[in-house]
């Protein structure tokens, strides 16, 4: 079996502010194989973006502190790498598409210069040659090359996101982290951008971490899925495991929150309550105050990780080694 491109073990990240310690990640485990598209699904504030930034070692510090855990990126320990080596990996071995295309581009620099920088930084070529490569890249993401010397304010949101994607792809990375790449876009543009990403991924054969809260995108593009809640993976498995053999009550809640297009009379069943305050997480299982199946033990002990197969697990007190195999514990299965 291949070596994983990304291997995160027990990652703990805190944001230490004057108002308190925000526990963004609480022992996150995540492994991505070369060529795999891995979906990281969860609500706003669950720590998805922090996980992505952690891989690039770009968590703002202060206030962010990596308290524990390791991130092995393409065989190198991100925490132990020198800043210089890290710089040569960023944009080249791993790159990130950021959430908000409106603010992710430098307003006083032409679009092509911002893309060309990636080539100039990593490939030791002249500016003219970099611009040439940039024009090819612009065409690839569906922007006419002659618009390259325009500024970001002359572009629409969808176009800007294509530029951000072009920046991320320019280094031909082994791992692409896409942080809600379509959240800021209209639905029609979303579909275009997603199709483009799927195609580019196939072309470049890179691994991808797709950070999203949209289960539709996950179904569309991902091979494996991790469901994150309050900074911890609560259920992880293949796309089919998560969608058809759902085990964790939180994952069930996410599915139940989706509108049912075939039965429009059916009421939405949102997960009750709100994401817990990450500076004051509930004891035991962090999901227990919102869980429909809550038991006494849930607030007292951290739930065990129970495996259904080699690659599908859930962290929940409802399960033991037997009942996780056949399911039927929660309503969805």
């Amino acid at each position, binding site marked *: 079996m291949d070596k994983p491109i990304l291997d995160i073990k027990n990652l703990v990240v805190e944001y230490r502010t004057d108002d308190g310690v925000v526990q963004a990640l609480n022992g996150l485990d995540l492994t991505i194989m070369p060529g795999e598209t891995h979906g990281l699904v969860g609500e706003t504030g669950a720590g998805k973006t922090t996980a992505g930034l952690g891989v690039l070692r770009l968590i703002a510090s202060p206030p962010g502190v990596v308290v524990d855990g390791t991130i092995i990126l393409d065989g190198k320990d991100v925490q132990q790498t020198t800043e210089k080596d890290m710089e040569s990996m960023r944009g080249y071995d791993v790159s990130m598409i950021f959430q908000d295309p409106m603010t992710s581009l430098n*307003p006083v620099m032409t679009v092509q210069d911002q893309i060309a920088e990636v080539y100039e930084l990593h490939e030791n070529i002249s500016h003219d040659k970099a611009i040439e490569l940039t024009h090819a890249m612009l065409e690839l993401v569906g922007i006419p090359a002659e618009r390259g010397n325009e500024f970001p304010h002359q572009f629409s949101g969808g176009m800007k996101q294509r530029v951000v994607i072009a920046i991320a792809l320019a280094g031909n990375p082994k791992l692409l982290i896409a942080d809600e790449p379509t959240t800021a876009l209209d639905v029609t543009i979303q579909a275009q951008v997603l199709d483009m990403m799927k195609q580019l991924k196939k072309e470049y054969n890179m691994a991808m971490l797709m950070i999203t809260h949209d289960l539709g995108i996950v179904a569309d593009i991902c091979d494996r899925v991790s469901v994150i809640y309050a900074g911890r993976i609560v259920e992880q498995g293949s796309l089919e495991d998560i969608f058809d053999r759902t085990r964790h009550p939180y994952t069930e809640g996410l599915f139940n929150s989706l509108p049912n297009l075939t039965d429009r009379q059916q009421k939405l069943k949102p997960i009750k309550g709100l994401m817990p305050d990450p500076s004051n997480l509930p004891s035991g299982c962090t999901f227990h105050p919102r869980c429909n199946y809550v038991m006494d033990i849930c607030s007292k002990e951290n739930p065990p990780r129970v495996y259904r197969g080699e690659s599908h697990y859930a962290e929940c007190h409802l399960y033991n080694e037997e009942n996780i195999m056949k399911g039927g514990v929660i309503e969805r299965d």
Partner: protein
Amino acid sequence: MWKYIAKRLLYMIPVLLGVTLIVYIIMSVAPGDPAKAILGDQATPDAIEQLREELGLDDPLLVQYGRYVKGLVRGDLGISYKSKGPVIDEIIARVPTTLYLSLSATIIAVVIAIPLGILAAVKQNTFIDGLSMFIALIGISIPIFWLGLLLLVYFAQELRWFPASGASSWKHFVLPGIALGFHSMASIARITRSSMLEVIRQDYIRTARSKGMPYKQVITKHALPNALIPTITVTGLQIGALLAGSVLTESVFSLPGIGRLIINSIQGRDIPVVLGCILVFTLTFSIINLLVDILYAFVDPRIRAQYF
């Protein structure tokens, strides 16, 4: 672009008229008779009365002002009461000194302030940040004339590194330039720091870092151009403050510039010279503001798209 500049230049006309009118009124209402000031304490009332008539000082204020504006339109700034020569000649003789002084002060201010502000922002909440902002605080608090005297005592009298007065070489402008520029330096450094702090938190800075660009390069190539706009604004305004400060600095360092001319003329009630100097200051300030606005467009393509 040229249309915009022409429009802005036309707008300067009402500004100049307004400023001269206000100064004219102030000078006329202020106590003290120009005729008496020219002829001295020993003059007879008859002689004073005669001179007042000669200078047209007995006419109504608006008539006097109208006469002045009429001259102005023809490019005539009037005749000095004191020297009896054309005001324009007196001003032209003194412009270079004030120009060199303001220029050296601006250069000293900008060259120190921008790196200081960047450094303070990048090293926020460290000793370097604290020291930079402490220097800036001193700069804002310290009066120009006192700093000027200190510099004179130590660097001109004790160490004899620089001459104490005169304006015949670049050395003469070092101490006055520091005295005058220090205050502006402080303001520019503070604003550079705060705008830099805002910019380095922006998403596009993170994007630049995610490309693998070294942090120093991110600061100079991505953050600085974006942080410069407030800095340019303040620098432009500070040049206005420099003109006002030149009055004090030129007095302390005995520089024969516009600042000293205006002080002497106010004391001698030499109204045409005062007005001439004020006109020069106003014009300079307006043109600098125009240059600042044009400079914005060079720095920020969004502004360029809006105006040009």
